[in-house]
């Protein structure tokens, strides 16, 4: 089928309450870069570390293949009933219970990390509670439009955030770019901490595992893998781009000394009317946080309902509001009691890396394996 025709058909289906299959690449891409794009170049310092990105991207690519296999199974297309069919009611409730913890933790860490950047860049004296509540309200406003609309909002989130890459293109050009900083591109000795760096970059590719629970949202799953892979490839290119520009501009020595190099580099841009463009850039990243939190509100609602055996009831606006209040309250108390000292923040960020990496690796393969075994057993019978 020609691409234009596919897009047209998919567009119609999107209008009727499904995500078009091509939306997969935008969701994957925005979920992956939501936070890591701002601080990843700080983790990757030396030029030869550039190879970690394609390696992690390749592994992520394979993982997405597994994810697409799972999404094509009948169980994935059934939604909650499919999970019960596959794993049994008790196991699903237990996993939903665990999922609540993971969602709350991931959402809190990503949002609070973003608010830290806002705090550092825009409002050093302002309390975090105000923007936290406003972000929660905006996310709830989006979430109340329904899961389909939230997924479709990825297009707007992409358009509103992807253009920012153009601001950085000038750092690839001479005067600002020092090309010697790119060398040595291959390590001269055995590099240290390569595995921890790989884990960090692998975690930076995480996020698409949440699609494993949205199988019934896609209008069709045929050809889904190529769209997911496209999103993954775009993410890899973005990571490489940002790593290269920060490396060319700062050099490895200075890069390891500064926080948030992708944010700080924008300070060096001067326009006739504006300077300090990072203030606009950091503000603009809010759209990704709102998009992500709106999806998390839906997932949290589903997880709570599944754990409490209310999954059969239709979604209500009140339920979503309660889920949003739960999410924001958790974030608030988390920031008040567990996100105060820098040592605490580092500990939680490390935990977040491990959890993200683990969930991304385990969820698609576990579900795909379980579905394949079950379907094979049924076929044998």
């Amino acid at each position, binding site marked *: 089928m020609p691409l*234009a025709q596919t*897009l*047209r058909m998919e*567009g*119609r289906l*999107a*209008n009727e309450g499904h995500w*078009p299959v091509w939306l997969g690449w935008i969701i994957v891409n925005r979920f992956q870069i939501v936070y890591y794009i701002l601080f990843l170049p700080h983790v990757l310092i030396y030029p030869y570390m550039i190879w970690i990105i394609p390696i992690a991207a390749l592994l992520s690519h394979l993982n997405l293949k597994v994810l697409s296999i799972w999404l094509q199974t009948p169980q994935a297309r059934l939604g909650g009933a499919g999970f019960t069919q596959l794993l049994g009611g008790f196991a699903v409730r237990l996993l939903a219970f665990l999922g609540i913890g993971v969602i709350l933790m991931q959402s809190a860490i990503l949002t609070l990390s973003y608010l830290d950047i*806002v705090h550092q860049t*825009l*409002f050093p004296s302002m309390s975090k509670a*105000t*923007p936290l509540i*406003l972000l929660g309200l*905006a996310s709830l*406003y*989006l979430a109340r*439009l329904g899961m389909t*609309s939230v997924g*479709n*909002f990825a*297009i*707007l989130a992409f*358009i*509103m955030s992807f253009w920012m890459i153009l601001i950085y293109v000038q750092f690839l050009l001479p005067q600002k770019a020092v090309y010697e900083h790119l060398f040595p591109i291959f390590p001269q000795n055995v590099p240290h901490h390569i595995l921890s760096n790989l884990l960090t970059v692998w975690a930076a590719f995480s996020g698409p595992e949440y699609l494993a629970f949205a199988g019934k949202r896609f209008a069709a799953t045929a050809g889904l893998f190529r769209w997911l892979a496209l999103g993954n490839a775009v993410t890899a290119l973005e990571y490489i781009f940002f790593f290269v520009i920060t490396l060319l501009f700062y050099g490895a020595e200075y890069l390891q000394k500064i926080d948030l190099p992708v944010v700080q580099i924008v300070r060096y841009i*001067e326009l*006739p*009317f*504006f*300077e*300090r*463009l990072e*203030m*606009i850039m*950091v*503000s*603009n990243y*809010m*759209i990704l946080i*709102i998009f992500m939190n709106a999806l998390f509100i839906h997932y949290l609602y589903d997880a709570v309902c599944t754990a409490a055996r209310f999954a059969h009831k239709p979604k209500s606006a009140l339920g979503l509001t309660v889920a949003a209040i739960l999410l924001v309250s958790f974030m608030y108390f988390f920031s008040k009691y567990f996100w105060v000292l820098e040592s605490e923040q580092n500990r939680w960020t490390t935990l977040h890396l491990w959890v993200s990496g683990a969930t991304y690796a385990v969820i698609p393969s576990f579900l795909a394996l379980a579905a394949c075994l079950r379907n094979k057993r049924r076929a044998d019978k």
Partner: protein
Amino acid sequence: MHWLTKLLASIQREKKQQIARKQPEAPPLSLEYIQQAFQNIHDAKTIEINNEFLGNIALFYIRSLVDVRQLQEFVIFPLQHSSHTSLRETVSAVEVNELNTVEEAEQAVLKGSVILHAENRLWSIILPNSVSRAIETSEQESIIYGPKDSFSEQIDQNLTLIRRRLPIRALKSEELTVGSLSKTTVILLYIDGLTNPELIGIAREKTSVIEYDTFLDTSHLAHFLEDHICSVFPQFQQTDRPDAVVAALTSGKVVWLVDNTPFALIGPITFFDLFQSPEDYIHRWVVASFLRGLRFFAFLFAMVLTPIYVALTMHHYQMMPIELLYVLLESRSQIPFNPFWEALFMLLTLEILKEASLRMPSKSGQTLGVVGGIVIGQAAVAAKIASNILIIHVAVMAIASFLIPNYLMTNSSKLIQFGLLILAAWLGMWGITLGLILVLIHLHGLTSLKQPFISPLVPFYATDWKDTIVRLPSRWMIQRPAYLKPLKRYKFSKRK
């Protein structure tokens, strides 16, 4: 079980009979009854004519609703002098319909018919007094090149202007009546075999279920057709240009014509439709695309310019280059208010001036412009109430807002601007961004006639982008808007 079914059926029958008994019987159709029904109406007239062949004839009508000259020429004169034995032959120059019920007769009188009692029966002769202005140039959507005619308050005349441009039998017009008191005639137009039947069904249903007493305008009707009544964005397009209506019909939309209103209502629309002008299709496509892009930019500019000034001066001084900062500080050095109050004062003053100039006679309006623009602006700066830079901001913003072709949209942007101003004063650039994202989410959730409001962006329709922000050559725009799901996709007649 059979006896139970019979019992239930008999109970139902009895209920129906009871309901029928409760309903008052329709009064017998007679001229006396009609005269009685219209008593205390000073211009309700009865004329009696004695014709040699037809016997005694009575005419009843309301003088202000009937074309008296035509009545005299085509009805009274023939009745007085004709030697025909049949009524239809006597008044053959006009349409004569026999009346069967009292309701029919009452409606006929109120719509400008003459009730005629002859041959022991009642007849109606349609002779409405057509009070209408001539076809004039559109004031709301004036263009330099292209057709100049526009709609008037006469619905039939408006329909004629459309039918002249679309002489096809597939152009269907369904007449509906809305308003229990106003009895306003609404005509629903669409092209059969092209417009999506689902859209026609939604439009028909939404119009027919309206329960309200008075409809005087298309905007009033639009309020009852909208999917989202709390939104600041218009969800239907209003136009007084027949060419714009025809363009909408041929793209697969539905149109409402409302009697006594010179505006047609077009739906469904998208956010991007509100930035389109009929002139876009007259210019060269590159020029048209540039102008269209300029309108979008002006819309955004008008919304955020003053809030950005407030955000920069209240929260982010460091964002300004040092030379510009010196100019700004000097300009603001003697202003006793903070930038928020300064901007709010100037914006409200501007809105008051704009609103006053709309309500005043045109000559006084010009004076008001001079007074507002020069005297108040200069005086505000001299009195140290507002800075020079803010005056420039407000003036540029005001001019930019006029680039939006849709007046309702211009007013919507004003309201958003005030919201952004508050957010800018509170949270600076972050607040403005938050406000814009909220607007975006709101737009994302909107629908017009159940169709997504920000299509072709979400849901994404690649082909529709040829005529959205840019306007590509007409030859390349071979398909109708996909979000409308038209039955005929292609504009070229050889393709389906």
